[in-house]
């Protein structure tokens, strides 16, 4: 049963699919469940019929009782009412179980499609949609999707009931039917007027509530500051005023909501008095009998209630359509990363080459062949233009440069998280676009700035890339990074890392990620060094662990640590997507060029002798 005030906080939403296309697509999900839906629909009809026959039977019996009653007939009518009451329950039971199954299966299928689609997108897709939105589209919007259909079925059953009763009333007595029907617009209008009043107060009430919640949030987040300066009384005064204001605004909203049903009840009460009055007079002038009179008295209640749900249908329906559209937008997003072939990867030595690579984050620019790139739309820029870089197998390469120089973009192209528009990237001389993507990615070991861990134990996280690895293999990988970090974990490898690794420090998470790479044993190691500071003890463990990981492997590091640049085989300085200097730390520093400037900007303060206050 739909409540008049449902769906008030529906957001405005830009629609890019037409209503028809959307509904057709929604129905396609229900098509496999057509038999079930047919059962549900027939139950809807059966329920409406039963609901109409009950008052008819009772009225007939009342009519009988008001004259010289035939006991047999009255009792069989009563039996009919009893059986219909029981049948109504059965119809409802069948309808609900079948629709729960259909809805459950449709939501499941939709969630599966949505999540599959999501995992197949490249990372440019994730830049477009924040992860929270993707999650709510996959879980909540899919749920709302199904409501479009159940809501429609509900509405249809209500309308059907109203129609059947209307027809019956007109067949019985057109004059009285007109009286009852005249109330209908009043009820619908009332419901609509209340809805628009409620919509305004609801928005105000939500804002008021949001500001109270923000005030509490701020207090709790800043409690340490408030307490250390002993400002509790002042912030309490602020809160008290906000809370009082919210109370007033929300009370006003509640009163609007609270007056709807008393109002509707009064309207239907007046209508009832009117029906009794007109009916009584009609009985006296002989145009209807007592039974029919009673039929109208009963029908009024059955007739009016469904009308209130008509008022809220449209906005709820639109809400459901918007939810569906959000889900379909996920499913339909085009993947940008395209493999031209799926050749097996085989043994990899780890020689890498960027050859005349062109890259932009603009999603509309297509891939091109040859040397002349297409013009970019205004606002878009090339991150890499005709970029060349050769990395011999086994080299440790540190990349330095200002923010936006293109350091991370290089990594993103290597991992095939993003598609580049022109040129070629080769591993051991083979085009990466022609390789089987999953196998290719397994040859790369990636450690991002803030390593991501899944909830579970340290061991499970180390095993993530190789679910088949034995416990011994996992332990060996962990131990080869040194013993101390394992001793620092409260339960060693069995330590629960918490949600997203929150129970471990950033440094510990990096060590877990390094162990994960060691177990995977990739030919190429990619590291985006943390910019956040890590305590010097753990930092020492990480640096020692890195030595182990980088041994025998091609390593590419976006460097933020002084010790890393000092130990790299080769440093490249990147600016606007171009290599402007290269060499090792000592030689570059001696040159006094761009690297020296970068050193002075990013690495100087990490040095042991750093003493700015004496500058």
């Amino acid at each position, binding site marked *: 049963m739909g409540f008049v005030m449902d769906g008030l906080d529906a957001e405005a939403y830009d629609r890019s699919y037409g209503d028809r296309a959307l509904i057709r697509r929604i129905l396609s999900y229900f098509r496999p469940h057509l038999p079930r839906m047919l059962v549900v629909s027939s139950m809807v009809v059966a329920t409406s019929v039963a609901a109409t026959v009950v008052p008819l039977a*009772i009225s007939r019996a009342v009519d009988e009782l*008001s004259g010289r009653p035939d*006991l047999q007939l009255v*009792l069989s009518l*009563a*039996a*009919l009412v*009893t059986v219909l*009451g*029981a049948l*109504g*329950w059965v119809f409802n039971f*069948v309808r609900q179980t079948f629709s729960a199954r259909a809805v*459950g299966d449709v939501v*499941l299928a939709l969630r599966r499609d949505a*999540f599959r689609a999501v*995992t*197949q997108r490249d*990372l440019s897709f994730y830049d477009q949609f924040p*992860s929270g939105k993707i999650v709510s589209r996959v879980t909540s919007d899919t749920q709302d999707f199904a409501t479009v259909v159940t809501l429609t079925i509900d509405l249809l059953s209500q309308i059907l009931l109203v129609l059947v009763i209307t027809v019956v009333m007109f067949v019985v007595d057109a004059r009285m039917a007109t009286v009852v029907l005249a109330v209908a617009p009043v009820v619908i209008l009332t419901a609509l007027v209340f809805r628009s009043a409620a919509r305004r107060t609801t928005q105000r009430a939500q804002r008021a509530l949001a500001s109270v919640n923000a005030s*509490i949030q701020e207090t*709790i987040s800043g*409690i*340490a*500051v408030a307490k*250390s300066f002993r400002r509790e009384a002042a912030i*309490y005064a602020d809160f*008290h005023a906000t*809370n009082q204001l919210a109370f007033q605004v929300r*009370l006003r909203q509640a009163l609007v909501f*609270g*007056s709807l049903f*008393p109002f509707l*009840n009064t309207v239907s*009460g*007046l209508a009832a*008095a009117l029906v*009794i009055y007109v009916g*009584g007079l009609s009985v006296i002038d002989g145009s209807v009998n007592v039974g029919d009179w009673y039929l109208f*008295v009963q029908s009024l209640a059955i007739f009016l209630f469904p009308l209130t749900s008509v008022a809220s249908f449209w906005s709820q329906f639109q809400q459901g359509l918007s939810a569906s559209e959000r889900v379909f937008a996920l499913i339909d997003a085009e993947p940008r990363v395209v493999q031209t072939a799926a050749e097996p990867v085989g043994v990899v030595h780890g020689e890498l080459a960027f050859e005349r690579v062109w890259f932009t984050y603009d999603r509309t620019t297509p891939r091109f062949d040859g040397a002349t790139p297409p013009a970019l739309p205004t606002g878009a820029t090339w991150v890499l233009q005709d970029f060349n870089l050769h990395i011999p197998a086994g080299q440790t390469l540190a990349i330095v440069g200002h923010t936006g120089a293109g350091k991370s973009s290089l990594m993103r192209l290597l991992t095939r998280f993003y598609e580049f528009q022109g040129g070629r990237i080769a591993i051991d001389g083979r085009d990466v676009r022609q390789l089987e993507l999953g196998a290719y*990615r*397994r040859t790369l070991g*990636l450690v991002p700035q803030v390593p*991501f861990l899944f909830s579970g134990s340290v061991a499970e996280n180390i095993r*993530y890339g190789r*679910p088949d690895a034995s416990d011994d293999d996992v332990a060996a990988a962990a131990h080869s990074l040194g013993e101390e970090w394992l001793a620092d974990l409260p339960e060693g490898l069995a330590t629960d890392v918490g949600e*997203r690794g929150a129970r471990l*420090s950033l440094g510990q998470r990096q060590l877990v990620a390094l162990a994960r790479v060691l177990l995977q044993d990739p030919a190429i190691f990619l590291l985006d060094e943390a910019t956040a*500071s890590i305590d010097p003890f753990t930092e*020492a463990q990480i640096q020692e662990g890195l030595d182990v990981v980088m041994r025998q492997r091609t390593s590419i590091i976006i460097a933020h640590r002084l*010790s890393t640049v000092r130990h790299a085989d080769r440093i490249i300085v990147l600016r606007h997507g171009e290599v402007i200097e290269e060499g090792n730390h*000592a030689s570059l520093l001696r040159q006094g060029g761009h690297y020296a400037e970068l050193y*002075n900007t*990013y*690495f*100087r*303060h990490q040095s*042991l*002798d*750093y003493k700015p206050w004496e500058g």
Partner: protein
Amino acid sequence: MAASEFRVVDAHQYDYRSPGRWIVSHLVRRPLLPLVFVLSAIGMALLQSRGAVLTGEAFDAIVGGGDDRIAAFLAVVLLILAVRLSFGLVDLLNSFLAQWLAQLIERDAREELYVSLLGKSLTFHNQQRVGDIMARATNDVQQLNAMLTPGASLIIESLISIVVPLIIIGSLNPQLLLMPLLFLVSFVLALRHYSAQLQPVAGALRGQFGTMNARLAEAISGIEVVKGYAQEAQEQARFEANAQRYRDLFVREGGVQARYLPLLLYGVLVGLGFAHAAWLLIQGQLTVGEVIAYMGLLEILRFPTFISTFTFALVALGFAGARRILQTITTETELDENVGGHRATIAGAIRFADVDFGYETAAQPPPWPGAPEIPARVVPVLRGVSFAAAPGQTIAVVGQTGAGKTTLTRLINRTYDARAGVVSIDGIDVRTWNLDSLRSQISTIEQDIFLFSRSIADNIAFGVPGVADRAAIEAAARQAQAHEFIMALPEGYDTVIGERGVTLSGGQRQRIAIARAFLSDPRILILDDSTSAIDSATEDEIQQAMRQIMRGRTTVLITHRVSQIRWADRILVLKNGELIAQGTHDELISQSAAYRRIFVRLEEPEQGATTWAL
């Protein structure tokens, strides 16, 4: 009265002995409102029943015949009109009262919770996650509202609108009570059975939704790892298994809801009740009008039958929320304002003598039904820590994340109290100090600097409201190397920070906090400098500001920077809550292998490079 760091004068005292009593104590605070609510509900049920009886009388007036039947009929119709109109008015009153009560309890409970949160020690706050507390202050408090209206108010109305019609039916003819009473008994049984069946399934469904959501959120946040390790298929299988379990529970819940027996009982009641009434009429014991009145009275029972599943679920949710709120309010806080304590100007000598500290975790309810309760226990954080700092010294605290560095500093301003041993300032136990006097002379600059969503000037003057004028604020900002970037902001010192204003970088926030500390001019400074600045220029400014503020004050400095550690007067090396070494840099280099190790890689090859430092 429990210890508290903050109280409101004349606050209303509620009953904390159980969630039920607590809710009742909120209701009876304004006794007139609930009383009038119940009376109006009774009035509604009476009027509604009267309406049904009058409808019957209208029929009798017509069917019964007689010469003045039109006049009698008109009189009855007018009465019906009057009854229906007054019903509308009483309904309105009743509905307003219900809404008012619900909003009041929400407001008062929120206020109560808020005040109690302000009064809790930081020990309490540091053990809670902001998200949990927010959930209590927002969802749980709102659930109280929903529990009262429509939840409890509908239950009360339902109860009354079952009892009153039954009484009226009895007054029509006691024999008519047979069917409704049978219905009532079976209804209560069926309802109990239903909620016993529904609750576990509904709970499991909600739980499964949470599980599915959490794993999905994780997979999507960690998509780089998923893709980097080519584990898409594994994640799909995991998600589909979760979604399948959700689907199965959803179907089971649908099945339970479809079997809602009270509907069947009501359907049967209408038929059997009618048969019974008809039989009594044929026996000459009832009139047609009375049969119609009886059917009308049965109709009143329909609403409670339909609505009860919904209302009981709301009340159960509200109760669970009330329990959680109450749990937060009644958690004891161990610190007190210590109004009569020692007041003096601090010179700055800090001394820890064999200090132990541990968090006490509260006993937790069983994680799943049937499991044993998780007992309270103490998680040790610091063990046997002893050191001393002379006034004006800088003490660097180093150690791994989780070694207890922050906890150690929090014992100084009595954010926490030591479980054993003594923390003293100027030779006086911190527990003897007046809390105001102690805290007002100790400033803390945390790692994550919290600024309020107010203007920058207000944030800087936060510790000394109303005392500092704009000139003093600017002077403090200059000393903190913050003046220049503040002036570059659109509205200078009046720029509002936070959600509705500008976002500041970590380095900028740090300098605002330093300016705040300059204004409050503390004797002891606790500085958590374990965040990092990305570039050396920002770092230069921060370090200069820090040097300025540390001058002439005792400073306890948590830092990861080797250059800072090196120049401290005294270095404390913490590991797993124990002080494994302390001394000056040179002493530690010769004594501690762990300490030496952190400098090895940095001192390595070319010393030439370090001369580059300005």
